[in-house]
């Protein structure tokens, strides 16, 4: 197996993964999806690092990836706490809800056309029920306390 070709392949795959994460982070507005895209960029970097480590027969690449995973775990904890706070205050996960933080004199961002939602797009995952069904309280179903 040609080691240089292997390195080149992994650099290309890592670069593509990073670019896809970049697109998602720049384009999507859902805070949770943006967070997932940031993690995707880290994965792309990790792939390149492991590729370099193998090519040079050096453990540094893999060590760095271990610390990347650690830092990503810290980032996930703090980001989820922040997202929870922001979602509680704004009532949704939209980043545009926080555009009051923009600089003085910047025009406000407005949604121009909201597309109609087609019926075939409204698909949600079907979760297979597991275990015994808990007893239902019809009163509680009518007045569901806010989660």
């Amino acid at each position, binding site marked *: *197996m*040609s*080691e*240089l*070709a*292997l*390195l*080149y*392949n992994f650099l*290309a*795959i890592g*670069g*593509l*993964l990073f*670019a*896809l994460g*970049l*697109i*998602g982070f*720049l*384009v999507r*507005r*859902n805070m*949770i*999806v943006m*967070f997932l895209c940031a*993690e*995707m960029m880290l*994965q792309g970097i*990790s792939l390149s690092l492991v590729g370099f*480590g*193998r090519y040079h*027969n050096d*453990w540094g690449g*893999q*060590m760095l990836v271990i*610390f990347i*995973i*650690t830092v990503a*775990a*810290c*980032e*996930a*904890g*703090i980001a*989820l*706490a*922040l997202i*929870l*706070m922001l*979602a509680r205050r704004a009532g949704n*996960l*939209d*980043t*545009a809800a926080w555009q009051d933080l923009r600089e003085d004199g910047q025009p406000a961002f407005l949604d*121009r056309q909201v*597309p109609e*939602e087609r019926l075939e*797009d409204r698909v949600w*995952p079907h979760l297979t029920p597991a275990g015994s069904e808990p007893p239902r309280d019809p009163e509680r179903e009518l007045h569901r306390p806010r989660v």
Partner: protein
Amino acid sequence: MTAWLQKLASGIPEPARHVLTCATFWALVAGVIGVWLLLPTRLRYGKALGSLLVAIAGVLFAFDLPLLGDWASQVVLWLLAAVTLGAAIATIASQSPIYSAIWFALSLLGTAGLFLFQGAQFLAGATVVVYAGAIVVTFLFVIMLAQPEGHARYDRLTWGGLPKILGVVSAGLLVGILTFMLGRAKQEATRPTEMAAAPAGAVAARHAEGGVLNERHVANLGRRLFGEHLLSVEVAGTLLLVALVGAVAIAIQGKPRLAQRIEEALR
């Protein structure tokens, strides 16, 4: 056909001709348009056309990559890369955040497979364990916070037409520049002499004691981690502790203070 193309290409000055005759360039063009179509859009057949263009781009890009010189590993590598990148595209293209999270989990599994492909066994396991845990937590958050009735407005929209185009094109340019800079490495990798005469000494060094492909891989990794990098491990542990405290502090701030709640109750 080819002669006609060559005649056409000879009229173009050198650096531009070099780029225009490169399959990676056309793969990136097709990929950029395809991803642009796949992102939340108002076009009727945007998804189907986008998927087709992305598939074409993937084939073109793979066509231009240097071969490993071993068919079994080549097929495995292409499969893993297709799973990872396809799931990554689906992550950013899904309208519902729940599907995004599931596709991202699949992309992580593909990444773990790629780690394993390179002999990084511990990292493959750690990626699955750590990120699978993180993904399950994210998933629960999504289920708790997302609106159950239909998709949210902000999931069916982006920041508008121009920012979407700019984002996709800048990412395409980034990959283009990276592959352009790596051109010499690719030329060396595709040279038949390099393929035929694999440096036996280098391969042996990787499998020798202390090399990255040694069979006592995890033991070696642990020795390095807790030997050379012991201080870094301590710092990382401190960082985790600080992040934990910070997350708790941020989450508690969202609730009204006890005194405030008593005051509201008395009013």
